[in-house]
């Protein structure tokens, strides 16, 4: 996994609450069997007019000042709905490295950490202020530092954020979860040895 240490970039505002994963990446694009190439379909139904090609000029992220943005600032409960990991894949493929919101849905939040995408939880007022700044000052940039757990704009804004220490550690070093778990082989085998015999699974008892 790609490690995340620090990101400095343009901030794009998406001033909506409850942005669900169906909006982030609509179902017709879930049929790809690869992890890559989802960026062009990010926010598809909002981003393009009904012809599916012409960018909708009313959609925030289509404004020229937010091209190349790497930090998305948005409303509460971002990523709710389906467990599709295609959502963080699409956000990453589009170019985002950080999502800042007052809250995230659990499964989406978890999926971000598996892909080197940093979700930052900040208080609602703080997020609101960042959205206003990103709107008022096109090209507004932030630096998000995972090591220091800070969000700064080099001027007035200097905010700390909380993050689970284990998640932080894995993200900073781009650790492969599976490799880590396979090191616990002895514990896993010991657990399996003490599982009740009636938890047989699907190979036995086949109808």
């Amino acid at each position, binding site marked *: 996994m790609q490690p995340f240490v620090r990101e400095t970039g343009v901030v794009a505002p998406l001033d909506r609450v409850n942005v669900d994963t169906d909006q982030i990446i609509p179902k017709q694009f879930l049929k790809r069997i690869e992890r890559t190439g989802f960026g062009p379909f990010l926010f598809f139904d909002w981003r393009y007019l009904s012809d599916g090609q012409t960018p909708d000029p009313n959609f925030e992220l289509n404004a020229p000042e937010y091209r190349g943005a790497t930090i998305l600032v948005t409303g509460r*409960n971002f990523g*709710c709905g389906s467990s599709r990991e295609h959502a963080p894949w699409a956000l990453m493929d589009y170019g985002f490295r950080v999502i800042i919101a007052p809250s995230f849905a659990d499964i989406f939040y978890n999926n971000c950490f598996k892909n080197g995408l940093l979700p930052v939880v900040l208080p609602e007022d703080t997020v609101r202020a960042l959205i206003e700044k990103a709107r008022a000052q096109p090209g507004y940039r932030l630096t998000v530092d995972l090591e220091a757990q800070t969000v700064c704009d080099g001027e007035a804004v200097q905010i700390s954020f909380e993050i689970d220490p284990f998640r932080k550690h894995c993200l900073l070093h781009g650790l492969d979860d599976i490799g880590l778990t396979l090191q616990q082989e002895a514990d896993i085998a010991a657990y399996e040895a003490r599982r*009740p015999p009636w938890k047989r699974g699907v190979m036995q008892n086949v109808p």
Partner: protein
Amino acid sequence: MPKTMLEKIWDAHVVRSEPGRPDLLYIDLHLIHEVTSPQAFDGLRLSGRRVRRPDLTVATMDHNVPTTDRSLPVADPISKRQMEALERNCAEFGITLFHLRDPRQGIVHVIGPELGLTQPGMTIVCGDSHTSTHGAFGALAFGIGTSEVEHVLATQCLWQSRPKTMEIRVDGTLGYGVTAKDVILAIIGRIGTDGATGYVIEYTGEVIRALSMEGRMTVCNMSIEAGARAGLIAPDEKTFAYVKGRPYAPQGADWEAALAEWRTLSTDPGARFDAQVTLDGSEIAPHVTWGTSPGMVVPITGCVPSPEEFTSEADRRAAERALEYMGLMPHTPMQSIKLDRVFIGSCTNGRIEDLRAAAEVARGRKVHPDVHAIVVPGSTQVRRQAEQEGLDRIFKEAGFEWREAGCSMCLGMNPDILRPGERCASTSNRNFEGRQGRGGRTHLVSPPMAAAAAIAGHLVDVRDWK
């Protein structure tokens, strides 16, 4: 120290625990489908890893399968490619697959319980958020992303931080025409779509105890729509009777041993929850959503709200956007909203009891000429059983289309989708923008409410049809 059911199941599955880290949990059952698994199998191949426990892993095809004639080839080449990938992956890694034409095929959350794979006290995961359904049996069941699917395939374990616990107690008794779907919609209306984020919900109270297993599955299914990764209901005699004798359920001496353990799972008296919510079941009316989030819901006797009724600016704007998308004006009585389509099915409401309840309403009546209505059983077995009971004839005589099993119009990955602007009463779980097709407008309802709406041509209070 008295423990909640969540704590008991959790503690029984900890493989490794150290301070400052999530726990490593063992997974008893891993369910797989065609959409969220291909990249996980690719990951295994790339790193030369095997599936640790193919015997605890079961796959089916549900999300993008056609619900029309199964003897024909799958028309959509991309869907076909995804189904073929699952078939290849299961063959290569030795995983049991209930293929498109297998009599055991169906929506993953319908077939788990119906085959007896889902059992109390288990940890169950699937690359699908509605895995919460299996919590109805007192199993800790939650949705995971594709990276975690790969992790479970390789290790049969997951790193998880212990969630907080929330008790939602529903007292009293439900009135005529009020179903499990209305209970969960009322709960989401009360606590909001992020009301239980970070929690596992345990549903308790007389109303929950009185629900059938099917009803309990409907409630747990939509826990995710309240933000909870999992919902739990304590197993009881009803649960045990449901599981007993199913193909993969323990048998003989194993059954007795399992039962003895399952009887210890309930939350101990005096155990503490991190949060508690109480509802009076006798006050719950049939519910229907008006907006683009399951929390945007009112009783069928109500009206479309006005954005001014919301206190926060964010919610006001969300309501304005939703009304525009849904093509609705504030204060419109819900029962005056006309429909183009009706969908009965999904992992929320595609079980035999749901079809019986809908058929009861449809019996001897006719679908409104302006409405196109389809019934999609949750599994091939549900379809067979419904046909044995003659439900298919009732639906067909009333003018409903009777389809093959799958996820279908719940998420519209197969050809069953709404056209832009079409309005649908749906027994599914999500009314998100575009969920059932770009520009499609979804109103979530219970199966009897959906059947009544199909006949009336507009949303209607099924209680008036007593």
